[in-house]
């Protein structure tokens, strides 16, 4: 296998438990290839951030083996850029200087570090504010600075934990474009999150993590293909759904109640939206008051539900 063909990271049988004994990861096998964007999706507490730390080389798992860049952990930190859930900086220093100094710690010479900092802060829309102390930044601006630092580091492996958090639409678009650009250049990226549309857009493969276990892994198309119906019908009821409305009902042929979350019912429908009138009629018969209906194609959210057996996000009732 040539160095180019070697995976960036190969993780085998990764197990980890926190001090209180709670399992964070259970026998996770994962390969991150060069030139790919791998998405990791799962509900809160499913082990996404823990997995990212293990892949970064910042967390020694209790069991299993991680091979980075065809070798051990030596030098792995320098070749890996990581954006974790927090965005801490030296708040009294400007964003530009934070990025420059942290790049210097990675061994990037000063002038080049300054150039890279200017370039990437500009791409994420911070050119005008890069000279201001980070203390004056909003949460979104801190996140953008963090992403600028990660891309400027130009590591062989980029690990992003919930990167969409607090980002505006323009920055999301820059992030998506930059990830595709990186992949074309052969960089490996792992990105965690809940944004189904974003993941579908930028990821070559997606891993579903449920309670620390790998529930499914495949391209977005493969995963979505596992959803039974050709459409997802979401029905919003006025108030929480009574058991009598949702449970034990006979639904139109080809329609299945996939999930129920408070007053929101999610159906998978084999024949698309054609069964909607019949479905609405049966709900009204059952005494439900319908506040809204949405018919859409299945996405990674639906695929997670189908393959992992639980919703990706639990919404408040």
């Amino acid at each position: 296998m040539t160095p180019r063909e070697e995976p960036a990271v190969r993780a085998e049988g990764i197990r980890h438990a926190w001090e209180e004994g709670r399992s964070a990861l259970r026998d996770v096998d994962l390969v991150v290839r060069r030139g790919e964007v791998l998405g990791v999706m799962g509900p809160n507490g499913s082990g996404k951030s823990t997995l990212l730390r293990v892949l970064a080389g910042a967390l020694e798992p209790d069991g299993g083996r991680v091979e980075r860049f065809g070798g051990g952990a030596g030098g792995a930190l320098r070749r890996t850029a990581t954006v974790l859930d927090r965005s801490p900086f030296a708040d009294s220093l400007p964003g530009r200087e934070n990025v420059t100094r942290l790049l210097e710690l990675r061994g990037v010479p000063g002038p080049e570090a300054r150039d890279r900092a200017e370039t990437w802060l500009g791409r994420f829309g911070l050119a005008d504010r890069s000279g201001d102390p980070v203390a004056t930044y909003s949460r979104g601006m801190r996140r953008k600075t963090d992403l600028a630092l990660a891309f400027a580091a130009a590591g062989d492996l980029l690990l992003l934990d919930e990167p969409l958090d607090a980002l505006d639409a323009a920055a999301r678009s820059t992030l998506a474009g930059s990830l595709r650009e990186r992949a074309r250049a052969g960089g490996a990226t792992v990105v965690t999150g809940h944004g189904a549309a974003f993941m579908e857009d930028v990821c070559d493969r997606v891993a579903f993590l449920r309670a620390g276990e790998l529930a499914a892994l495949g391209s977005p198309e493969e995963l979505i293909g596992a959803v039974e119906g050709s459409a997802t019908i979401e029905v919003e009821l006025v108030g929480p759904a009574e058991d009598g409305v949702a449970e034990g009902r006979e639904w139109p042929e080809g329609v299945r109640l996939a999930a129920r979350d408070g007053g929101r019912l999610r159906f998978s429908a084999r024949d698309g939206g054609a069964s909607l009138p019949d479905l609405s009629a049966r709900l009204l018969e059952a005494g439900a008051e319908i506040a809204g209906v949405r018919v859409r194609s299945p996405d990674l959210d639906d695929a997670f539900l189908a393959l992992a057996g639980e919703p990706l996000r639990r919404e408040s009732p």
Partner: protein
Amino acid sequence: MTGGVWRLEWRIVLSRPGRLAWSVSVPVLLLVPVALSGAADAHRATVYALFVVFFGLFGAAAPVIRDAERGWVERVLLTGCGVRRWLVERTAAHSLQDLLQLAPALAAVIWIEGGARVALPAASVTAGALLALVAANLVGTLVAAAVRSLAEGALVCAGAGLVALHLAGAFRPPSPGSWQETAAAVSPFRPALSSFRNLAGATDLWGSAASVAGWGSAGLWTGPAAATLLLIACAWIGGPWVGRRLTGTDNHF
């Protein structure tokens, strides 16, 4: 890049002029009244030494605990700079910063205590304070790694500072030939204490200002300097543990 942590720490401290001015003013405001108080010579000297040691201990532990809690330490270590390098460069930068922040207060104390006649004790006060600050910064960082909160850190630093000064002979002269005398002879805080005693005109185990600061005193400084190097070596060996503690469970940098 070697020196990267050192430069970063200096840039951070210089980017906060208000806080820097406060850090310079507080020692002046606290130590000048002591120098003018007319308290017993030995007591004034002990207060000076206590202040320097606490300044280094708290000044190291509190920011490290805060930086660890907000993820900054992990951010720096994830650059791959190495926890040992971080520890050494940070300690060096902060020890020197502490000395510079204390300089106006020490200058005022030296002037009040002895006017222009104290060139020799002044030199030994400066050198002794630097040695004490290096040791205190190292201990403070280790305390930060060991504790789980700022309050716990403050408590442990206070206890550690008092014990360290007691072992240096600050509160009771050690009996001749006892292990306490040996401990005092090698304590990194001893040179500062002896220098302050000479400055304040108190009698000291090591003798006069000339014997503490003069060229013939090399033997008196060897033990404390060796003990400080030993502390640095311990921190170097324990670096990975410090990294794990400051970045959450199990991290290995």
